[in-house]
């Protein structure tokens, strides 16, 4: 399974729907997508990871990079994930302290913290 990416605008936020495997091979595509969004002025991103089947530390690095880029514009990067296998890597790396992680896109779109 390769990586699938699609984006849509919801109000003032942009939802990036990611599917498949985010690893050392596919992570650069996600990085390009996040950079494109930030360079075209989308600074409040919701990354929907519900259809992600695999995420490794390369993928985590790309997400942290995306967070840093939106923060440079006082933006936000929220994650949507309820899958235990994906949440586990955020927990063991302590990145749950870095990213707001929501249980649905709706919740992430409404969040203001």
């Amino acid at each position, binding site marked *: 399974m390769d990586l699938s990416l699609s984006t849509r605008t919801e109000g003032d936020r942009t939802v990036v729907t990611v599917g498949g495997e985010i690893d*050392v091979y596919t992570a650069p595509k996600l990085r390009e997508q996040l950079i494109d969004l930030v360079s075209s002025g989308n600074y409040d991103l919701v990354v929907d990871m519900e259809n992600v089947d695999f995420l490794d*530390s390369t993928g985590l*690095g790309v997400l942290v990079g995306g967070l*840093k*880029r939106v923060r440079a514009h006082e933006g936000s990067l929220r994650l949507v994930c309820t899958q235990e296998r994906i949440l586990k890597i955020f927990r063991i790396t302590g990145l749950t302290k*870095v990213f707001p992680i929501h249980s649905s896109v709706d919740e992430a779109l409404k969040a203001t913290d």
Partner: protein
Amino acid sequence: MATVEVSFTALPAHVRTARLVALAVARRAGVSDDLLDEVRLAVGEACSRAVGVHQNKAQHAPVFMRLVDEQDRFTVEVVDVGPLEAAVTGADLDLDADALAEPAPPDAGRDALPDILPPGFGLAVISGLVEDVSVTSEIDGTHVRMTWPASDVMAPTAD
């Protein structure tokens, strides 16, 4: 003892293949279902790290992976030709959350931001995941060895 050996050109695209092979052999070795995600992630981290090392230091040398199905355990060994970076343990997973959330410099271009996650982070993830892991620097390079319990599926049944 059954062994599967794989050597692959140090390309990111092959890491997925290595994960799939490891997963298939782990399943056959009798590693329990709830450990298979851990096997997949840990093998992926070990192979990604090895590919990174080779791309910097020995592009043409293959990365080597050995999968050993012993009676009650399953071992994966990933070997690269590079020296081991500074010793890493699970403790290195203690990332500085504030530093990670720091904004990128405003002039950051399209290039990857430097050192987002510390070197050795992949190994630290493995240490955080896998109970039985050893990382050793040997004459032919760095060996990452990970072992999981496995039921003895090939053993003859009692009846």
